[in-house]
């Protein structure tokens, strides 16, 4: 953080340190499989906590908890429909981000399988954690 130089000439990088921090925060929100699963569900449309719980088979408390984290990172917003509280993806950027991410992963999975490079992908699997939850 201290190594930032505000007077850096333009053109070297168009990401300022503050923007990089914010982007890293947004990506951090995507760094847990259960949160990604929730976002994947919301890609198909707004859902209530109850819907998410039954679709994903997760505990209600942990769904609410992960939704709070997603809201904190402005990936998800809550709206009231009648009496129910419904969660939706925050805006179209989030949809684009998720689709691009999915595309990226599927692409890499295919090319990785084609090259037979299983060793390279091992650390990545570990970092992603167990997707079973």
């Amino acid at each position, binding site marked *: *953080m201290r190594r930032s130089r505000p007077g850096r000439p333009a053109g070297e990088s168009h990401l300022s340190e503050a923007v990089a921090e914010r982007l*890293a925060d947004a990506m951090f929100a995507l760094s847990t499989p*259960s949160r990604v699963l929730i976002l994947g569900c919301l890609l198909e449309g707004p859902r209530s906590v109850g819907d998410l719980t039954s679709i994903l088979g997760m505990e209600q408390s942990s769904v609410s*908890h992960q939704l*709070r984290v997603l809201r904190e990172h402005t990936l998800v917003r809550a709206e009231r429909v009648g009496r129910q509280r419904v969660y939706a993806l925050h805006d179209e950027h989030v949809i684009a981000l998720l689709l691009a991410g999915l595309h990226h992963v599927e692409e890499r999975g295919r090319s990785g399988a084609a090259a037979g490079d299983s060793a390279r992908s091992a650390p990545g699997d570990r970092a992603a954690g167990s997707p079973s*939850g």
Partner: protein
Amino acid sequence: MNNQRGAAERGRDVTRAWFAPSADRRSLLDRAHRGDIVGALGRVPAADTGPRPSRRRRIAALLAIMGPGVIVLAADNDAGGISTYAQAGQDYGLRFLWLLIVMAGVLLVNQEMAGRLGAVTGAGHARLIYERFGRRWGAFALSDLLIVNFLIIVTEFIGVSLALRYFGVSPYVSVPMAALVLIALPLAGRFRRWERAMYLLVATSFVTVPLLVLVRHSAPLTAVPAGPRHLAPEGTVLMVVALIGTTVAPWQLFFQQSNVVDKRITARWLPYERADTVAGTLVFALGAVAILVACALAFSATPLHGAFIDASTVAGELRNRAGEWAGALFAVALLNGSILGAGAVTLSASYAIGDVSGAKHSLHRTWRDAPKFHGSYAAIVALAATIVLIPGAPLGIVTTGVQALAGVLLPSALVFLLLLCNDRAVLGPWVNTRWLNVIAATVVAVLLVLSGLLTISTLFPRAENDWLVTAILVISAGALGGLFGLRLSSQDAASPPGRSSPGKPAWTMPSIETLPPPVRSLTRTIALVILRAYLLLAAVAVVIKIVRLITAS
């Protein structure tokens, strides 16, 4: 040939450094909790996973990692602590010196457990209670923490106003100034800057040592009498319980666990974090003992012996007995302790709020970056300061309320702590060892009894408390607690990762939502039933007291 193998091994080391399962905690809620350790006295890069062969590098790592334990335990000598030690010294001489030493041991055991939970799980204490004991216990622990913390912060501001009044500063100046300083401390969004400011306060807390030296040289070195005759024994029991109540408080557990997470200390650094807790215990013991002994020496064999009023009168009397400097040093110690205490206690509340609400909560973040974290911190400080300044505010009730409520909360916090530290899903190979369980369970049982007595005696000042009954209760509770500790360790022999497995330093709690539900063992049920019964008893006592207050007025 030899050279080549060396190169190959170095190459393997590099590979291991990159791909070894570094203890990267997976339940973090805030990205700022991941990265380099940037302590007040040094830095450890996150990529540093290699061994530390030389002593110089180990000391450098220790200096960088040290902090959470030292700060939390130095902050224990806060306004309430200092005035209670002063009272014990002034009224009872050196009679309770042993108790402070015992309490230092209790603090060490408790804080080590909290620090270990933080380093291994990466989650705050409040969140672990929510996840492992359910929503209701979680909400209970959190709301109790917030209420007691708020009352403690009010007492810290009372400490500030008393200390600066000694120097002739009006509370209307001193309290707002202190509040502004406190709000400014974490605002920069630089963990290192905050920790350096706290270190400065920790360093200032050592003024108690010159205070002791001054008193020692001015007071006649007569043998300090064991205790005055005119004090009734029930006062003594109350003094014991008050000393315990001010030294062991739940906010310390919440603070150290969250601060370890926020400082990015992982399981790999646990030996260093333990050293940090030991250092903090020494700082605590030194400060507390210095004040108690200074007050004991200054007031022994004087009419003031046994006539404690409050911390500001102690400062004035120390000036009369041991000179201008002694009074001033005591006032500085009180001011410093109040600020340090208020800073740490408020932070423990803000950490817990962020922990439960999923809001960003880190000292690495600026106001703009984490508005809820800094906002809740500033709001708590401002509200507490305002209450102290309201003329005729019932500050006496606040002080009593702190002790009574702390009595209700403390044992519950310790029961959760003990159960969490035996939860294999949470701590894996890092669960408590058998001897630690025996010690910790004995301590919890004894504190449960003593806190019960404190609650009852603060609510009913005239209730009978005699030494014999107290001793029998405490000893039997301690024995039961020890047995319970043995049970805690023996409950599951078939544990997945062994305590001495080679992967232990890298073991870290899996994502918290993927954990299996807690094992429903008899031990756990017994602990929670005792806790419920205890809370019910305390609640009944409070209700009776309120009814009496209403009918009396």
